[in-house]
Structure formats: C-alpha cells, structure tokens
C-alpha cells in the first residue's frame, strides 16, 4: 500500500537509484524541468544537468545516445514523452538496443530503461493516445513492463534500472495522479517479472495490466453482485510473461479473459490466449475472451474516445458471454 501518487512514487524510485549509482543518468526532452508530466520534476536540482539532460527534439538519437552511453559505462534512463513518438526511435531501439547483447555474442550489455507514457485519456487524439506495447513485446531482446499502481511504480522502476538488459517501462498517464487503494495487496510480490493476483476468485480469471487492472477490479465487483466470482491478475511484466501464475489461476477458474486498452487486433491478449490454451486447454470450460479497443485510430472527440476505450462494463459483458448470459 502506498499513500503516494503514482508519479511521486515513480520519481522516488528514480531518485533512490540515482543516489545509489552515479552511472544512472536521464536523457529526454524537457526532463530537467520535469518532463511532459512532471515525473522528473526536481531531479535536476538534486543531480545536476550532467545527469538529468535536456535533449533536442531528436527521438532516434536520444535513443541511440542512450545505447551508446550504456555500453560505454552509463545506465541511462530515456524519457520519450508519448508512446506515439516511439515510432521516431524504433531503429535505435529495435536494431541496436534489443540486439547488441545477442549480436556481440554476450560481449556487451545494454543496461538502459526507456520510460514512456501512453493511454487514451482526455481527448488527445490519434497521435498522443496510442497503446503500442505489443510492438515491443514482439522484439526479442527487450523486456517490457507496465506497472498498474503507485507501489509497483517504485518497485519496478528500481528493478528496471538495476537490470542489465534494455527495459521498456510503460506508464499510463491516467495513473500518474492516482494513489493506491488501501487494500491493494502489494507485499506478496517476489520478482520483477512476477504477476500478482490482486483479487481471489473461483469462476473466471481476468488478466490485465497498467490502468486496466483498476477497471478489472471494478468489473469483478460488478460480477460478484451477479454471483460470478472473478479472480483478477495484474500481469505487471509483459516480457517475459509469468505464465505459471496464469496457468495456476486458469486451472482453478477454468475461464480466462484478457483485458487491455490497446487495440485487440494483434494485441498482447492474443499471445496470452494462445499460450494459455496450449498449456491449459483441458481446464478451459469456455473459449478465452479478450477485451480491447476496436481496430480504429484513437479518436479525439470525448464521446468517441469513451466508445473506444474499454471499461468495466465491457469486461462484465464479455464475462457474461462466457457464461452464456447476455
């Protein structure tokens, strides 16, 4: 349980690592004045402009500099303002950061973290709202994590900075200014890449991550009122995926629904569904369901955005389908 807001908890985690290890530096646009949302606010005051470095608007080279600095003695954190801008940095990330350890036959490590925020929230439109985590989960050599609460923000950013592989650290801007619910079970987690069962249930497993975990919990309460006991799992790590925790749960509940904000087509839910049906087919009593955004660019109009973004009601409707109810 954390009384801190997500953004403050995240900043605390970064500060603690920067104090502990002088090799940790931050590259990004406006990071010395807090970055786009204030995550790095105040860090330049404590650590100076040689460690919290404002860059030009040059995403590909920000990423490439971080790769170069990481194999030449630093542990860089890159801030990319919006997930949508990752498109500008893909060559350095995909062709170099992800592959250097492998291509060098283990000669080199690339200990860098790419912090990036995403989410359709508030009518920012098609170029500032996309959830593109599946792209990175498709690239061998990148770890991908997406904390869903303030306590994890600190735990996971510290683990990401300490990791010797490149880590894509996905923040949802709808979480930045939220605090954790008092009953969030955060103390039972053991590893960086371990999923967490955040609500026990017996009839259906709902797997989610990032902001959608909160929606899954709301949906679970709504389902409980209709006599369906839902277990909710916060995946936390998208690469690698903690399959044993998922399989254990599905063996108990015999039903699985994956919920994410990204468009459903080609999304992470498809991968999870494929792996679970292979590992636990005999335990399933219903086809695996997915909830995600429709296959359309994120709209700007708030009325359309509300239609686009998955919510608890859509999760409830999907679960009811699995039980043959409308």
């Amino acid at each position, binding site marked *: 349980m954390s009384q801190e807001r997500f953004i403050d908890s995240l900043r605390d985690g970064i500060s603690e690592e920067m104090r502990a290890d002088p090799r940790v530096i931050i590259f990004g646009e406006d990071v010395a004045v807090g970055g786009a949302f204030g995550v790095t606010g105040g860090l330049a005051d404590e650590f100076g402009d040689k460690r919290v470095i404002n860059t030009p608007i040059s995403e590909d080279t920000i990423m*490439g500099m971080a790769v170069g600095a990481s194999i*030449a003695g*630093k542990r860089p954190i890159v801030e990319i303002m919006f997930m949508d801008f990752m498109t500008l940095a893909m060559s350095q990330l995909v062709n170099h950061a992800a592959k250097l350890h492998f*291509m*060098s*036959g283990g*000669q*080199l490590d690339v200990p860098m973290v790419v912090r990036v925020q995403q989410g359709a929230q508030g009518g920012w439109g098609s170029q500032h709202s996309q959830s593109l985590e599946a792209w990175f989960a498709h690239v*061998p050599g990148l*770890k991908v994590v997406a904390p869903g609460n303030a306590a994890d923000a600190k735990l996971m950013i510290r683990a990401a900075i300490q990791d010797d592989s490149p880590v894509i650290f996905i923040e949802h801007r709808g979480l930045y200014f939220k605090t954790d619910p008092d009953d969030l079970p955060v103390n039972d987690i053991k590893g960086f890449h371990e999923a967490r069962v955040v609500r026990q249930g017996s009839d259906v497993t709902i797997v989610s991550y990032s902001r959608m975990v909160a929606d899954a919990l709301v949906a679970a309460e709504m389902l409980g009122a209709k006599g369906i006991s839902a277990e909710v799992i916060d995946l936390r790590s998208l690469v690698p995926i903690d399959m044993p925790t998922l399989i254990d749960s599905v063996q108990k509940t015999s039903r699985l629904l994956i919920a994410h904000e990204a468009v459903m087509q080609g999304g992470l839910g498809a991968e999870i569904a494929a792996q679970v049906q292979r590992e636990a087919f005999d335990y399933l009593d219903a086809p695996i369901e997915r909830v995600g955004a429709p296959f359309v660019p994120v709209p700007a109009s708030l009325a359309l955005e509300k239609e686009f973004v998955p919510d608890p009601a859509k999760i409830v409707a999907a679960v009811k389908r699995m039980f043959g109810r409308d």
Partner: protein
Amino acid sequence: MATALSNAALRAALYRMLLMRRAEEEVIDLATNHENEIRGHYHVYIGQESSGLGACLALGPDDYVWTTHRNHGHVIARGGEPGPVIAEVIGRTNGYNKGRGGTFHVIAKHLGILQTSGIVGGCVPMAVGAAFSIKTRKTDQVSLVFFGDGVLEEGAFHEAINMASLWKLPVIFMCENNSVPPEGREQGQYPSSSLAATQLIDVPNAMNIESHIVDGSDIRAVAPLLSDLVVRARNGEGPFFVESRLTRWPGNMGAFPELIGGPYQIGWVWDPSTADAALQSWLTDSDPIALFARALVEEGVMSKAEVEADDAKASAEAADAKAFALSGPIPEPESAMDYIFA
C-alpha cells in the same frame, strides 16, 4: 608530415594494409569457392585500407571505434586478429561474436569496437552517446565513428551531429566517401551526387563542427590529420568531421565483390599494365597499397623485395586465418536461444 611515422612504423603500416587486403580476399574466396560458408550479402574494405588504418593508428587502446557493413578492415586495422574476424564472417564459435554477428556485425569489445551496424548511420548516435559518457566520466578517451557518404542522407546523422556540437563531445565523425574519382580526392570543390549540399562538409560546418577533407587513399595524409584531431578531441576541442575521399575499387562495382583478374598480384604495384584493363587506372591513381608501396620504395624506406616478402607473409597470415576460421566449431543448435538477455 611525411616524418610523422618512423621507417619501421611505415613498414608496419604497409604490412597491416596488406593483411587487411589479403584477409578480405579470403572472405571473397569463402563466398565464391566454398559452398554454404557465406550465403548472404557481404561487403569488403578493399581499396580503403589507408583510411581505416590511418585513423586507427591515431587512437589509443581505450578509445571507442564504431563501424559499418564494411567493418572487417576496420577491425583488423584496430589490431583485431584476422582469424576471429573471418570466423565471425562464416558464423563459427571462434569468431569474435561466437557466430551471432556475422559479416555485418563484427564486434570486439576488447579493442573498443562496440558496435558494427548494418543500419546506414546506425552507429552515429551511439558514438555520440559514448562520447557523452566519456565527457561526464572525465576520461580522455575519444569516440571515432566510421561511416560512408550515404549516411549524410539519414536523419539520425543530423540529429546526432547537432547534439555532439551542442555539447562539445569528444567524437570524430570519419566519413569515408568512396564515390570520388581520382581527380576529386584533392581538397576543393567536389559535389555529392545525392545530397543537396555542394560538399559533404557543408553539413557539419553548418552545425559549427570543424571539418576537414583528406585524400583517404594516402595513409600519410590521413594518419597525421587524425593524430592531430584525436589529441585535440582529448583536450575538449571536439567534435570533428573528416571526409576521407576514396576511389572505389573496381571489384566493388557489382552486387557482390569480385576479384577482377584473380587475387591481387604485388607485381601490379610496380607495373599496373600487367593487370586486367579494368584495374589499371585504379592501380595507377587510387589503390592505397600501390600508392604507398611505390612511395616507400622510391623514398628508399623499403626495397621491392621487402615489399614482396611482407606481402607473402601477409598472404600466409590471411590463409592461416581462413584455416583457423574453417576449423572453428559450428554453433550447437541448442545454443540458438543464448544471449537474448544479459
């Protein structure tokens, strides 16, 4: 400038260039005369040895080097052994990258060669990032990145030189422009074919980066210029841009490298008219080894017999390197998933 290197150093430099040339010939041999050793595309550094060696001679052991698809020569110029280079090219476990890099990506951390990218311009941002690391660690290292003239057409190049200049980083951008006819290698106006700028150096000059043009086929022009720039970069005067002008080896004109008229004959150096007609003007005006060897003989630094003896030794060393490579184990299939994460 001619006295920048001792006679012994000049002879050692020619030997290294011959070794670079002969090792690349073995790569071509593996691609053309050995089934299934090199099945994909590959590139060789023949005809540019003076440029890579001249730059590497200026560096110290702790400096960083970044290179391209034409990396084999750079790695050997930097002091890499041709055996592990060729073994890497053919994907053996005794290659520098244990067979995970291949011809495009020979990496040798112990030589400071941190990345060899097949992405045009891919290493330029990384070289700048390493230079940033150097500057904040307050060491006197230099980060030198080799690339071709096409890199100036990539956006990442412009982003990266901007940051290097803004932050005055110890990085040397070594642009090997191998598209220049012999008459264009002399300093002066020479247009580039696919860049709107009149000259390549107009671009870094616009970013307030001190830029130089050098005849890349003349190691005794490249080495002293780079020695000076490396010292100045260590003193915080960087970054620098060098356009090293080279004339393309005729064997590099097609889709795959081709040894026109067979392996290089050292006799061609003394009499280019004995070579294939397609090579004669290149041997006369542009081949770095022919130009350097003739000059050393004319100046009395070496005799023709000594050049020929060194070439025979380099050829033997390259042949041994190929044998070392071919003797290397093929990676075990079950090791295919190694090295994904640190």
